């Protein structure tokens, strides 16, 4: 059970949250300009990193805000959290 540090509500148990996958995957500005490979890379390919991992969480059962958490995917240790616009 993870304690997710919501930037607004503080640490809460993980079942209050929705996991939103890897962070820092911006939607391409002009998808039509991309090759199928480039689009597939945006759509499906992930670093799935072992260790430091920046990821999106939403405090679904709380303040409904999306934010960024940095977590070690091996130990599940939370290394930091930040808001969009803010930083981790």
């Amino acid at each position: 059970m993870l304690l997710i540090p919501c930037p607004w509500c503080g640490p809460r148990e993980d079942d209050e949250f929705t996991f939103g996958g890897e962070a820092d995957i911006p939607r391409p500005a002009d998808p039509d300009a991309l090759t199928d490979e480039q689009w597939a890379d945006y759509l499906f390919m992930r670093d799935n990193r072992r260790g430091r991992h920046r990821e999106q969480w939403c405090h679904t059962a709380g303040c409904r805000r999306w934010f960024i958490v940095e977590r070690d995917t091996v130990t599940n240790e939370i290394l930091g959290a930040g808001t969009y616009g803010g930083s981790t």
Partner: protein
Amino acid sequence: MSSPISRRSPLGAIQSADTPPPDGQLVERPFLTHVNLRLDPGDTEARSAVHRVLGVQLPLTPNTTTAGDDLTAIWLGPDEWLLLAEPDASGSLAGELQTALAGHFASVIDISAGQTVIRLSGPSALDVLARSCALDLHPTDFPPGACAQTLLARAQALLIAVDGTPTFDIIVRRSFAPYVAAWLQDSAHPFGLSFPESNTA
């Protein structure tokens, strides 16, 4: 076709005329006015406009509330609040706010019928909530005036510490109210607490 319009609360309270909620330790507080307010906290003009209507400042500190005589402003998010007021305020409150906020990027939505309030109070309140709530509601961490959106068992709920009795107001969505009420009923039973007849959905 004009039979008097009867209102029904999720937990079975039925009344045509609004009456104050009965006293007690585990009761529904039906038909209160719930207004959802969204605005940019940086828009100080908008906030003072709201202040003029409500008579209280919007709480900017997460998980806190500000209470006026007949109205409580509850923090829901950095740009979202719930205004909890007496039954008769319904409609008018939302209307006044909409007028006051004209021209601002804001949203005022009356959701009174979409949720209800369960009041739990008494010395065993903490023990009862500990059966379904993972938060530490000990007064040192959760003093009167504090609020938190969380889960009660598998339902979302908004908890408000009302006073040090302790007394809690538990705000739940309409369709989840019977489930939450049943949990509280089941948890409260060993402590000799239960809903009055009219509320056992």
